[in-house]
């Protein structure tokens, strides 16, 4: 049964200084699944992922990825796409150099990439239609293109698990759609994916598994089971109207903003 589990989190707690973000989280993520994590700003989604990946040290608990315990860093192939606000755009790297970083762990001891690494990077850039920017500075790309650079970096590492922190924020509808469909096709090829997003309607329509998070796991399950007014109210501390029509689920802010507040 162990082999069926991609991520197993046991009793995980995290603090920044004295600020407790969450406590005692237990979670299992099956191999091959495409799971979405949703929750309000500041609810600890990014923190949860970072502590899962060894980026920040949890105050308590254990995480294993693909059967291996994450201590200081994960031992499995993970493609990680950070929230883009965290990226230093003025850093002097070209698109090719940034994407090549995804291959560093697989490259030999020499500082330069070999033919295979170069080919893989070119292939990924082509698949994501950003090959024309290969020698451009990362800062000069548009938001959607920048997002794809980091997706390309993750894919260049040939991951078994892909973790994306809000890849669809700040990009237009068409690009959001393209990214989601691209991810779905990767998932079909067997890559496990975890996606943090604020786009409830898109994940409701396409993802098989949703985790509602707010300083803890409020609920998890199939979209039709978790996207319910009471669960959403608990997650967002706000009233959300859920409209259903066949298999389509649409969510919207229910009441007009109270101007008296």
């Amino acid at each position: 049964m162990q082999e069926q589990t991609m991520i197993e989190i046991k009793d995980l707690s995290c603090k920044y200084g004295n600020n407790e973000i969450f406590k005692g989280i237990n979670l299992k993520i099956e191999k091959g699944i495409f799971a979405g994590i949703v929750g309000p700003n500041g609810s600890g989604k990014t923190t949860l992922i970072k502590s899962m990946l060894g980026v920040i040290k949890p105050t308590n608990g254990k995480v294993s990825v693909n059967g291996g315990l994450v201590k200081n860093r994960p031992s499995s192939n993970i493609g990680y796409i950070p929230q883009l606000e965290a990226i230093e755009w003025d850093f002097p790297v070209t698109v090719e150099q940034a994407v090549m970083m995804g291959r560093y762990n697989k490259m030999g001891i020499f500082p330069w990439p070999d033919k295979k690494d170069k080919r893989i990077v070119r292939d990924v850039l082509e698949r994501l239609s950003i090959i024309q920017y290969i020698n451009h500075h990362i800062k000069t790309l548009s938001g959607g293109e920048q997002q794809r650079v980091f997706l390309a970096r993750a894919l260049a590492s040939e991951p078994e698990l892909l973790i994306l922190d809000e890849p669809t924020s700040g990009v237009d509808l068409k690009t959001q759609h393209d990214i989601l469909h691209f991810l779905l096709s990767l998932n079909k090829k067997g890559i496990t994916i975890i996606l943090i997003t604020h786009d409830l309607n898109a994940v409701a329509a396409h993802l098989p598994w949703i985790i509602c998070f707010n300083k803890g796991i409020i609920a998890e399950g199939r979209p039709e089971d978790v996207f319910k007014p009471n669960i959403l109210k608990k997650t967002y501390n706000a009233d959300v109207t859920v409209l259903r029509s066949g298999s389509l689920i649409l969510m919207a802010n229910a009441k007009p903003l109270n101007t008296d507040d």
Partner: protein
Amino acid sequence: MIDFLITPLKYEFIVHAIAAGILIGILCGIIGVYIVLRGMSYIGHGLSHAAFGGAVIGYISSVNLYIAAGIWGLLSALLINLITRGKKIKADAAIGIVTTASFALGVALISRIRRFTKNLEAVLFGNILGVTTEDLVIIGAVTLIVIIVFFFLYKQMLFVAFDPESATVYGIRVNWIDTIFSVILAASIIVSLQVLGVTLIAAAIIIPASTARLLTNNFHKMFFLSIIISVFTSVAGIYVSFYLNAASGATIVLLGALIFTIVLIQNYIHRRIMEHEHVHVHSHGGIVHHHKHIDKEEHRHEHKEKA
């Protein structure tokens, strides 16, 4: 011109100084790129001041200068770590307190003893006199080690400087890289103290890399440009120091600052020209408008409706 370059080479001390200058140039050029990109400039500044206290104590108690400065630097680092552990004092403040106090201790000790005052000036601002063969061997060894380390850890260093959090996920041992870098940084500073001087060494490290940053957006190019600029300024600075009889640290830093300024101005003019040339008018969807391209590679623009 040739005479200008060759005449000084008749003196053995100047040959030594230039050899040291080339090595230190390589060292600072390499280290500087990482320091500048990780925003660690103040650490270089702090380390050199901390090492000074150790060097003076070493001098007085006739312990080897390099060993004394090294041990002292290590103790300072531990102390800084201890102070920041309480979380009330942030790292920059802790570094400021420990390293400046260490520097002050060095100054107090050395100025008490009259016959050291000449040496004090040399240590503070750099001196090309008296680079011994032994010094050259030590500087050479450290340069070689730094080159080897950067050769094998180049990828990791680049990733950690760019995106330390993701680097962890992609299997890079960020803590190791940080530790290794701190050690080579400390070693580089200690061996460069004599030529560059305690107070000027941080600038000598930062300026070539910053100049290189202005010249390119490509990390690999920045790396090599930084080394070239750094070697050039330190060798040229040593010549100027010889002819003007001025402290070598000062002439090296001044030359570097001059080149930096020229590049900065050139960059500014270039950008203005680009802005000028790339204003263009076009229309889509029936709306005609014009805008500037701020960067030569910038193709993004906002479409504002014209009032």
